[in-house]
């Protein structure tokens, strides 16, 4: 029926998710949940607020990560 198909993966198994976290550190003066970014002219500005998604996951599953403890897939 579909024997001619060819399944090719280009990057699974490599560092596909290597960019998950870039390690930004909140800048103290930005306030809770806000993160500083350096603009092109070198100034540090409080650009965005982070952490506004994910709270319900912890509400239902606590803070444990890993299989069966808290994930959004089903």
């Amino acid at each position, binding site marked *: 029926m579909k024997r001619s198909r060819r*399944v090719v993966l280009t990057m699974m198994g490599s560092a596909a998710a290597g960019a998950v976290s*870039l390690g930004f550190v909140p800048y103290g003066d930005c306030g809770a949940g806000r993160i500083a970014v350096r603009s092109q002219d070198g100034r540090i500005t409080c650009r965005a607020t982070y952490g*506004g*998604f994910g709270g319900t996951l912890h509400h239902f599953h606590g803070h444990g990560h*890993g*299989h069966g403890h808290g994930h959004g897939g089903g």
Partner: protein
Amino acid sequence: MQRIACSERDDWRETAEACGFDFHTIDGERYWDERAYYAFTLDEIEQKIEAPTGEIDAMCLELVGRAIRDEDYLKRLKIPETFWSLIAESWERDERSLYGRLDLSFDGNGPAKLLEYNADTPTSIFESAVFQWTWLEQAMERRIIPKAADQYNSIHERLIATWNELGRGRHLHLTGTTGSEEDLGTLAYLEDTAIQAGLTTTIIDIEDIGWRDEGGFVDLTGRDIELVFKLYPYEWMFRDAFGVRLKDAPTRWIEPPWKAVLSNKGILPLLWEMFPGHPNLLPAYFEDDPRARELGVSYVRKPLYSREGANVELVSKGVAFAEQQGPYGAEGFVRQALAPLRSFSQQFAIVGSWLVDHTPCGVSIREDASPITGNNSRFLPHAIL
């Protein structure tokens, strides 16, 4: 439909790990299990699974169309009013779906019956699309299964084709709970298919999404999130602090917000109301509907929102004989007629029927000693003989 015991490839773990399938074993127990496979006839696949899957999906789309026009549906589904316009606008803009999975009770004899629709955040896509196909090819080659075997599976190529139409040349963010090996594996696989379709990509944890002061979602580098695949359910997004921002952002979400209607188990009674007696539906009612009594003393009780079988309870002759604990149920429950999964060698098997861009294109089988399919239910491959 048969369950056929067979020998496993002695190198399957290495093969799995080489292609990034790291969650083949969960908590020390097999998740991927190839000590047996499920065999179907071509007629079973085409007439009893593929065709009904397309029909059920069409009924679901008709239901969404009605729900958008009649707020009573959204009230019954307990979707917060704040998000009705977000859902309606995504439907009216005809925002396309990437994929979904129907869970069916099917025993090879009568018609397949819809148990639920994983419309929003289905997982097990990698093992369905890729690893069971690898198994088929190697199992034929090593004479574990007949050389003329086949598989109902065009998921991978349809994902690439759909990404191509959704966003070729664009940048795609993929987000979810990256601390979960299974969810990260799912994101990595979908990322791979998107890259093959010509998109550039960034994976980002759901908690690392930011809100720019001028308006709009951004990643950790401050880059605007314009097109994003999410493996995080809408009902959680709606409760999160950023939920209220969803309608103010130009971000295009995949799955689109209208899928929030279909990922709710309240669609089971609504479909039964719209299409009573349909051979692929089971009688179902909201628990507070007096008609629920028509089911008698044997039924399945499911929360409107739940994942991986949590808070599902099977009741026979008034007595609960199987239940799974969990944190869900605050929004209410539905009751569905009891359609016990067929037991093969003391294992209960559920058929997951995949759709990509609304085209039925593959199946996956999960089995468990419990009649409730849960997070740790094993995945077995299938073949057409």
